[in-house]
């Protein structure tokens, strides 16, 4: 047994294997959002179908689920029923808002008419709100605490369990903005 070879070989290969083992489950597409833990950017946006514009400030004191979506986005269509059931499921202290991302108003109206909606969807025509929130794809959902801090960001479609999980965290988050590590 050549101990030098054994030792050298293990020295090179074991760390490599351990490293790869540790990195399983890493999703490189999950880019951490720098906004988590920070105050949610303000906005005032018109509602699809007309009516009064919606301002984020007016939601202060309630948990906000802010969902960026589009009609051309297949995972958004998948999560739509989950979100649509939200207002009834979670009660009045949770506000659901949709923000339409790079879409045609006519398509949005048709979709909402056909699929139904239980909360307002807002039109972000200039895309400025999406940029302010650092949205780089849809669907992305931000969970804002009653104090106005972004507590979590979900990239990808929501499931009922995930939705409940995030809403719980947002509800119980401290009022003052604090740096979180997620």
């Amino acid at each position, binding site marked *: 047994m050549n101990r030098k*070879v054994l030792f050298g070989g293990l020295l090179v290969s074991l760390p490599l294997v351990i490293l790869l083992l540790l990195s399983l489950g890493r999703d*490189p597409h999950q880019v951490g959002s720098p906004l988590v833990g920070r105050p949610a950017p303000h906005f005032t946006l018109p509602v699809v179908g007309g009516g009064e514009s919606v301002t984020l400030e007016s939601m202060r004191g309630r948990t906000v689920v802010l969902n960026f979506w589009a009609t051309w986005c297949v995972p958004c269509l998948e999560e739509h029923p989950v979100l649509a059931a939200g207002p009834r499921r979670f009660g009045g202290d949770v506000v659901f808002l949709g923000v339409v991302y790079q879409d045609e108003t006519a398509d949005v109206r048709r979709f909402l008419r056909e699929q139904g909606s239980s909360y307002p969807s807002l039109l972000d025509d200039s895309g400025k709100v999406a940029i302010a929130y650092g949205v780089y794809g849809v669907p992305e959902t931000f969970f804002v605490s009653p104090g106005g801090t972004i507590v979590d960001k979900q990239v990808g479609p929501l499931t009922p369990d995930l939705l409940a999980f995030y809403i719980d965290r947002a509800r119980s988050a401290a009022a003052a903005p604090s740096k979180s590590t997620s």
Partner: protein
Amino acid sequence: MIGFIGRGLVLLSLLAASAGSLVAFSAAVRRSATGLAWARRFAYAFAGTMLAANLLMVYALLARDFSVGYVAQVGSREVPDWVAVTSLWSSLEGSILFWGMVLGLYVLAATWTNRDRHPETMPWALGVWLACAAFFSFLIAGPAQPFLTLANPPSAGPGPNPLLQNHLLMIIHPPFLYLGYVGMTIPFGFAAAALASGQLGAEFIRVLRTWLLLPWVFLTVAIVLGGWWAYEVLGWGGYWAWDPVENASFLPWLTATAALHSALLVERKGILKGWTVTLVLATFLLTLLGTFMTRSGVFNSVHSFTQSAIGPTILVFLSMCTIYSVALLAMRIETLSPEGRIEPGVSRDMAFLLNNLFFVLFTFTVLIGTLFPLVVEALRGVQMSVGRPYFDRMSVPIGVALLFLLGVGPALPWGRATPAQVRRALLPPLAGGVAFLALGLAAGVRAPWALVALLFGGYAAQVTLAELWLPVGQRMKSRNESVLRALAQVQSRGRRRVAAFIVHAGMVLVMIAIAISSTQGVTAEVQLARGQSVALGPYTLTFLGVDQVSEPHRDALVANVGVRRGERELGTLKPRMNYYATQREPIGTPAVRTTFPHDLYLSALNLDPDGRTLGLHAMINPMIVWIWIATGIMALGGLFALLPVRRIGLAAATQEPAAAVAADAGPGPTPARIG
């Protein structure tokens, strides 16, 4: 029905491979000829069942049989038939099925061509090959089963990833890559067999070398095809981005190239046996690492398949193979005793050693750069990426050093030489180096590394051409042969040497082309209104308007850009934006006008459907086409080395003209260069 048969075939292949591996190892230990014969039969059975399974899947794809799971995943009625066939390897499950077939064919070929030879080592090799085959069969039968039967088959399919339908190059890049990657299993088996049996003599190293060279040729082509595809399709105008998966294909190439060189020293001097075997084992392990990187979802890349259960499974296999390799090396490396020694001092031997050193250094730097993000995230939980600057900064000096050795190495005589001999060998090619350098300076090259590459490249070019001519010239002089006859004789008697220098010539050309194309390009990025023009180098580019094109699987907006050079109208280039039903963002296709000196490269950054404005990214990329041509030269050289020589008797095939032999080969004092 198809699903059922397919699953059956895969199970049969798993059975054949597992049984075959056990029989082979037992035959090795007990030195049983009958056992070996049975192991061979199992190997053929594995190949046959894998081939049948793949043909069945191709049939299902062509028939658009959406009851088969994989077809439902990537099949489509809208795509043309050639896309249907190539979607065999477009997604994870199909690509592993394809892997199985390529492995089967390789094992078949390696087993059959060696059926009457090397009875002490073949059982070990077969055992290893069939064990790997069993793993991949297991993957196909389990975590990556493409033949699932869907209870409710969909009526239509999404088609494969649109990026894979964009270009014809996509048909050939994956097969070539698999032929390279998977092929490395064969030399792995031979290397393990050498260790297990304690034999790495002249005969066996030849076999190892042959079966290392064949996949090497495919891998070389595959890597460059990938770069070519990225260049023609992705639109950023480059051909290499140090993407983790690009690196995954490059790492085994580096160690395989090093092994090809050190194998020469094994054959000629009986030294570096353990080192060569280690390199070959490492090559295979790096292919496993590469496939893990591509399929585990751990790395972000244009290649990444989605995360699945495959990742952990491959990691387990990689760990097992690594432990096996290290243990085998530790226990058996002493049985490979050297038969000679390296002559210290300035010599061709030393150049070979340095060559290997630099290749291994290169491998480590690329490996570290690729894995570093994982380390950082594991230790600190912070995401980071290692980008081009690191890789470029490390690879340029190493590449230039290798180019230097490419010239100096073959120029130096074998073994110990006097300073006068060294001087006589090393000085003349400086003419070539200076000539290339002067040409570059005249052409306007000012980047320091590019100039160094030209100097070393010109030097290496002269050495390579001189080495190619040397035996021909000597035959003409000593035997009064005509040029043609001398050439014919040399290529048949000294084939491997000729082939090696052809490959070297290609390599010099590649490296010069890379140096020039990386430093001498010009770029312009402009917003053009319809009718507006921009000047780039000698060209005037005018945005003429937009066409809308409808194809069965995609819609496209095509920008028409008029190209003029001085007074001559050169026609219209048409960069386009393709819109696929299943993709959110459009995928652009650049328009490339290729000439020998340079490529004119246009891509559309943004294009409004009314054709009022075009965001144009225009580049002039010099010497790009020479990269593809030079790779072809390398591949042909490699294949030429593998062609059997039509001569009677094995000894005759390796005979070289006496003068070239004296100048080239063998240990011993002062082998003077003649002339």
